C-alpha cells in the first residue's frame, strides 16, 4: 500500500493534529444499488431514447484500440453527429470503451473510472482481446475475459476494430439501450460481490476502497 493511503496523524494549517485514514475518510464506501425502471413504460422508453442518443464516452484509452477513436473525434467520421462525444472525466461520461486488452495495472484504473461514472452507464469491449484474451492470450499481465471484471453491454470484434465498426457498435448499443436491455450497471450492483472477488483475484495490491464513486 502506498504511503499516502496509510492512516496517519496530520497537522492541519491551524496547528491541530488529527488522525486521517484515507481509505475511510476520502472515499464513500457505500456499495452500488440497482436502479429500477420507472413505473410508466412510456416514460422509461423516453428515458432510454434520451440515454441512447447521448453516449458520452470517457476519454480513457486503455489499449491500442484508442487510436481508432481519434478519427471518430475528427471531421472525417465525426461521431458527434450521432450523439457520441468524448469527455475528460468519468463524472461526465456514461460510456466506458475498453479499447482492447487491459493489463492488470490498467484494470485497476478502469474499475475506478467505471465506478466513478454516473448510472445508467455502459461498457463496450473493443477488439478480440476483451473477448477471450486476443493475441495476448498467454500473457501474464493482461486479463482475458473482460466480463469477469466489468459488466459488458456490447463487444465489437476486430484487432483493432475500424472507426466504421465502432460507429456500427454505437448504433447497436443504442438499439440495446432503447430496448431497455443495457442493464450492465444494475448487473454490476446485483453481482457486486462476484465482480469484486474476480477483480481482487487479479489485482494483487488492492489499495483502494471496494467501491469508490
Amino acid at each position: 500500500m502506498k504511503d499516502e493511503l496509510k492512516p496517519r496523524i496530520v497537522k492541519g494549517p491551524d496547528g491541530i493534529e488529527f488522525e486521517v485514514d484515507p481509505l475511510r475518510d476520502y472515499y464513500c464506501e457505500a456499495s452500488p444499488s440497482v436502479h429500477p425502471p420507472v413505473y410508466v413504460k412510456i416514460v422509461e422508453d423516453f428515458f432510454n431514447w434520451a440515454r441512447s442518443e447521448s453516449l458520452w464516452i470517457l476519454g480513457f484509452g486503455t489499449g491500442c484500440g484508442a487510436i481508432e477513436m481519434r478519427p471518430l473525434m475528427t471531421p472525417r467520421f465525426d461521431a458527434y453527429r450521432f450523439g457520441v462525444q468524448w469527455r475528460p472525466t468519468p463524472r461526465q461520461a456514461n460510456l466506458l470503451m475498453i479499447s482492447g486488452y487491459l493489463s492488470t495495472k490498467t484494470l485497476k484504473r478502469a474499475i475506478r473510472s467505471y465506478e466513478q461514472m454516473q448510472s445508467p452507464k455502459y461498457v463496450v469491449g473493443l477488439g478480440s482481446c476483451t473477448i477471450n484474451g486476443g493475441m495476448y492470450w498467454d500473457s501474464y499481465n493482461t486479463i482475458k475475459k473482460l466480463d469477469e471484471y466489468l459488466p459488458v453491454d456490447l463487444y465489437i470484434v476486430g484487432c483493432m476494430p475500424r472507426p466504421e465498426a465502432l460507429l456500427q457498435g454505437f448504433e447497436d448499443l443504442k438499439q440495446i439501450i432503447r430496448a431497455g436491455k443495457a442493464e450492465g450497471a444494475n448487473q454490476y450492483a446485483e453481482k457486486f460481490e462476484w465482480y469484486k472477488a474476480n477483480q481482487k483475484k487479479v489485482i494483487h495490491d488492492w489499495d483502494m476502497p471496494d467501491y469508490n464513486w
Partner: protein
Amino acid sequence: MVQDLSDRSQYPARNRDGTLDVDLTSGKYLKLWQGPNHPGITGNMSVELTVCGDEVVEGKTHVGYLHRGFEKLMERRTFIQCFPIVCRICVPEPDFNEYCYAAAVEELAGVEIPEQAKWIRTLILEMGRFNSLMMYLGGQSGSLGLGVIGQWTTYVRDLMLDRFEELTGARIYHMFILPGGVRDTLPEGFDARMEETLREAERTMKDVWNVMFQNAVFRKRTIGVGYINPALFDDYGVTGPTARGGGVAKDVRRDQPYLAYPDLEFEVNVARDSDIYSRADVRRRDALQSIDLIRQILAKMPRTGPVMAKMPNMLHWKIPRGETYIRGECSRGEYGFYVVTDGSGYPRRVNVRGPSYTHAMALLERLIVNCNIADVAALLVSLHTYPPEIER
C-alpha cells in the same frame, strides 16, 4: 534567451541522502497525477507531479499500463509467429517493429531480401513516419489548446491510412513486412492515389504552418520552453528529432543507412534552439521530407521481380545461434531490435529499444523540474513518446 531551467540545486531542499525534502503535510506541496487517464496524445502513462504553487518540484514517470510482456511472449512463438505480434508494440507507428524484427531475423538466418521488397519496405516506413508525425503535430498543438490542428492532421493521416489499407490490407496493424520480404507488390493505380493524398497532405502542412507555427500563442508558449541542454544528449540517450532540435544531426537514415535510403536524396533536418518549438519545427520538416521521400521512392523503385526471398518452411524454421542489433530512424528517434537466437525455432531473447524509453523516463523526469504545470503536457508531447514501446 534560452536557459537551462532544469537545475534543481537550490530548490526544494534535499535530505542528506539526496532525496527531495518534500513534506506533503506541510501544505506547501501538492501531489498531482497526470494520467494514466490519457494526458492527451501521449497515450496511457502517467506523471506523478509534486507541485509547489504552479511549479513542478518533482516528477516521476509511471509506466506499465500497457505492458503485455511482448519480449516474453515472443520467446514462446516461432519466428513466423512473432511477425504478427511485433507491430503491436507501438501503435501509431507499428511498421518499424515489423521492419526491425524482420531485418534482425533475416540477418541471423543469412537471408537476402529482393530489391523490390527493400523499396516497398522503405515506402511503408516513410508512410508510417508521416502518420506518426501527423499525430504528433495534432497532439503538440492540442497540448496547448489549439485543437484544430489535430482535426486536420488526423484527416490527412486517415487518407494515408487508406493508402495503407489498399497496399497492406489493414489500417493500423499492417503486418505486411514479414521475414523474407513483404507480402505483395503495390496495387494497381496506387501511385496516382498516393499522389493525390500527398497533395492534400502538402496543403494541410501549409495550413499547419500558418495556424500553428505562425501563431503568436503557440510561439510564445513554446519558444524557449522545454529546453534540453545538448550536452545532456549522450547522458540520456537522446536521439531523433529531439536531438536534431538541439542542433545534433543524428539520423540513422544518414549515419548508418539501411534499406533504400542510400539511393534517396534528403537533408537531415536540424534546428538550433532545443526547445519545444525547435523540436516541433524539425518534425514538421520531417513530415514534408517524408512526402518528398515517398515521391522519390515511387519514382525510383523497381516494379518487377519477387518481393519474397526463397525461404525455408516457416513452420519449422530454425536459426543458428547468434545475436544482432538492427536499428532504424523512426519518427521519434532510434528504434532498434536486439535479437538473440540459440539455434532453436524460437528467439532466445528479443529486446525492443524504443526512443521513448529514454525520453519519457530519465530525461523527462529531469526536464520537468521547475516546469510550469501548464507546460507539462506540451513538454511531454514535445518528446514525442509512445508509452507502449517503453513497457512493451
